[in-house]
């Protein structure tokens, strides 16, 4: 965006600004590439059963991502970094935009895949191959969960980037260096960040509504809600009790609650019933919620049917095999049994409850920080519009400290999304125990330590380089090394 201003105005100052931020982006990008490839490999190496169970759906977005997005990104990134002196200004600008589009596209496809795991749609189970097969590409792609997740994630990335730019610029202002660049950067970033954080809040709200529908257990965990109720309030801040007290219905030691807000947020109706964790574990006939043991029974029947089918097939009993196979295409069986397929893997009730404190605190940290960021952007925009930024020493001093908070907020968001759905790899169909590769613990431990050490070292290197590059500033860009 800054480059667009440069090309439009022809002011070399903007080019200098662009190049400086681009350099920092490059340092970060290297780590992004390094982590991206791990994800791809790990699906195969550590989650091989999962790779087969859902490969038919999951593979397609991944391949499309490779063909469309990665090549776009990697081709034009070369021009973006090395092309300043080689291609025309306009072509360079187009390349930078294509890198940005490519990066967002790759986010799209991986999030489509993730959304499918949270809410499997557009697929049917094929007993012959023992896997899920795609029946509608558009249902997978345009599933509301996918669309919302994509928007929520990219806007959170934009918020993070804006905070980063403001934080670094504020430091420059405090040091009275690069003042012009810093002021201009803050103006661009605070407008951009404010818009992004507003849409972040809107998509977050959409997300909550979807979770209420497709993953109600996660919602209950996010809110620490044990006994479901009508007119449920939203806990703004609270401290959870120990596990036993929580299960008995006394979830909080201290809490500040906003009445009816949870019902309203989740179902757009302040009267609506919101189910709690106990409603799921013990069942709630009044609300039509099955207890976990009931679901386990149903899931076991589904699994047994699949096993019987396979056995009949290998025994050569084709008539029996056919009749069992037909069940997987029968709506009643699908709705009453196959829907709970994943529950057939484990009898224990507590296995199906996610880690409540972790989910609860992560969710609240994310939300509180998210709204905090909105205020932060608004303040900086306000100061910047009145031209009084250089005098606001306290805020300038504070801004760099906000950067780590932005990372914490987005990680917390992923903790909610990924741990809140435990034990499911694929919601209600495939629990984590059934998704993993048969590996001994030692192997996994060694791999884990290997990665932990590598990334700790790389993280130190990255932060160190970043700090050096910032201190070095943009003044020597262009010409010398």
């Amino acid at each position: 965006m800054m480059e667009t201003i440069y090309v439009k105005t022809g002011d070399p100052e903007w080019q200098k600004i662009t190049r400086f931020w681009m350099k920092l982006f490059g340092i970060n990008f290297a780590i992004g590439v390094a982590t991206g490839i791990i994800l791809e490999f790990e699906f195969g190496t550590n989650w091989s059963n999962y790779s087969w169970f859902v490969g038919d759906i999951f593979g397609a977005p991944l391949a499309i991502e490779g063909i469309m997005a990665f090549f776009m990104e990697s081709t034009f990134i070369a021009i973006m970094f090395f092309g300043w002196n080689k291609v025309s200004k306009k072509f360079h600008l187009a390349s930078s935009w294509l890198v940005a589009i490519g990066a967002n596209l790759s986010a799209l496809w991986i999030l489509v895949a993730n959304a499918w795991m949270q809410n499997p749609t557009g697929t049917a189970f094929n007993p012959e191959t023992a896997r899920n097969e795609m029946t509608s590409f558009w249902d997978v792609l345009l599933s509301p969960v996918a669309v919302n997740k994509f928007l929520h994630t990219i806007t959170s990335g934009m918020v993070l980037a804006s905070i980063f730019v403001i934080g670094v610029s504020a430091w420059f202002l405090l040091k009275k260096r690069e003042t012009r660049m810093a002021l201009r950067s803050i103006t661009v970033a605070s407008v951009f960040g404010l818009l992004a954080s507003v849409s972040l809040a809107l998509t977050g709200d959409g997300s909550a509504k979807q979770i209420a529908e497709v993953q109600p257990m996660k919602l209950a965990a996010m809110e620490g809600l044990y006994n479901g109720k009508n007119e449920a309030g939203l806990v703004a801040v609270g401290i959870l009790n120990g596990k036993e007290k929580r299960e008995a219905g006394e979830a909080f030691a201290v809490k500040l609650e906003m009445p009816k807000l949870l019902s309203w947020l989740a179902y757009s109706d302040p009267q609506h019933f919101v189910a709690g964790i106990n409603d799921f574990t013990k069942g709630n006939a009044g609300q039509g919620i099955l207890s976990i043991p009931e679901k386990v029974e149903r899931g076991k029947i589904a699994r047994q049917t699949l096993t019987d089918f396979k056995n009949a097939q290998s025994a050569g009993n084709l008539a029996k095999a056919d009749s069992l196979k037909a069940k997987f295409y029968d709506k009643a069986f699908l709705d009453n049994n196959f829907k709970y397929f994943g529950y057939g893997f484990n009898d224990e009730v507590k296995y199906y409850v996610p880690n409540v404190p972790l989910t609860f605190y992560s969710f609240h940290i994310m939300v509180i920080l998210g709204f905090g960021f909105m205020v932060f952007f608004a303040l900086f925009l306000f100061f910047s519009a009145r031209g009084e930024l250089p005098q606001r020493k306290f805020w300038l001093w504070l801004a760099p400290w906000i950067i780590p908070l932005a990372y914490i907020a987005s990680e917390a968001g992923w903790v909610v999304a990924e741990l809140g759905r435990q034990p499911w790899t694929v919601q209600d169909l495939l629990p984590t125990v059934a998704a993993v590769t048969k590996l001994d613990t030692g192997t996994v431990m060694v791999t884990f330590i290997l990665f932990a050490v590598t990334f700790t070292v790389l993280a130190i290197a990255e932060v160190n380089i970043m700090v050096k590059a910032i201190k070095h500033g943009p003044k020597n860009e262009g010409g010398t090394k």
Partner: protein
Amino acid sequence: MFETLSHLVLQQYWWIIVSLLGSVLVFLMFVQGGQTLLGNLGKNETERTILVNSLGRKWEFTFTTLVTFGGTFFASFPLFYASSFGGAYWVWILILFAFIIQAVSYEFRTKAGNFLGQKTYEAFLYINGLLGTILIGTAVGTFFTGSQFSLNTMNQVTWEGPARGLEAALNIQNLSLGLAVFFLSRILATLYFMNNVDEETIFTRSKRHLLINTVPFLVFFLFFLVRLMFIDGYAYNPETKIVHLEPYKYLHNFLDMPLVLAILLIGVVGVLYGIGISLLKNKCTKGIWFVGSGTILTVMSLFLIAGFNHTAFYPSSFDLQSSLTIENASSSKFTLTTMSYVSLMVPFVIAYMWYAWWSMNKKKINREELKTEDHLY
């Protein structure tokens, strides 16, 4: 338009795409080869910086092709992905590791405050070049020699090999392919530098190392190819789908599919011709194009005889009937059809890559050029 095709035709179409990506990947691994030659071709700091920057503008193509090759393989033949990655665990983890350290090395190498020092990042690049090529070659070798695994009725893999995949490197056939890929990548790298870098000393040294690496390449490659013609291959009956061992299977595949044989021969001739003119002519910079396209054709023909003509492309030597074929390992017809539409974008992608590459290469890299560049590795 793809809806009318049978599932088998779609499976074949996708096997061709996977083969094509795999062979382009081997060509682009000149980056890896080059990383192992930095010390041989660059005798001082400036020369090494020139070499690193010359590779640095291409490494992402290779990396992305690897990722896309993996993604496409996953998408079109998920059972292979699940069985091989989950089974031959350590091979893939090592390959992964070799590429993680590459991903940061270019960007971090000369940056102030990089914590590990420039030498370490150069060592990372060397490790990536060495392990990346040899292990990928070895892994592809198992497409012909087989691996020890079994699948249960739910298609879940159990690996029976003692070292989770690393045992493949003990097989001389696999290892010779791995080493052939390694030396080929170095050959390609010397030719790439001869074409891309405008420095007299580097040109001369590249030419010398071209010769040095051609000899072992030919030894390992010919050993692999000739022996391949004589070993038993994993064939399956097109009606019953039952897998059995067939003597001279891969030789038969070439004879049954003359077009594939032609691709192999043209490819091999291209490689030899490219090496020949680069060595014999005085100032030849075009060798990379012949050897590069020859590489693509040769590797492609090898992938095609591994999967076509009723051959199991990922055979199990432990349990023949667990062997994977393009028919039993593929995605559903619906998914393959959907993805086929996406594949129509590939030519477009290649076109813009070519254009971007071309516009970046208008200026060759030399000392002067690097001085005007602010983004240095």
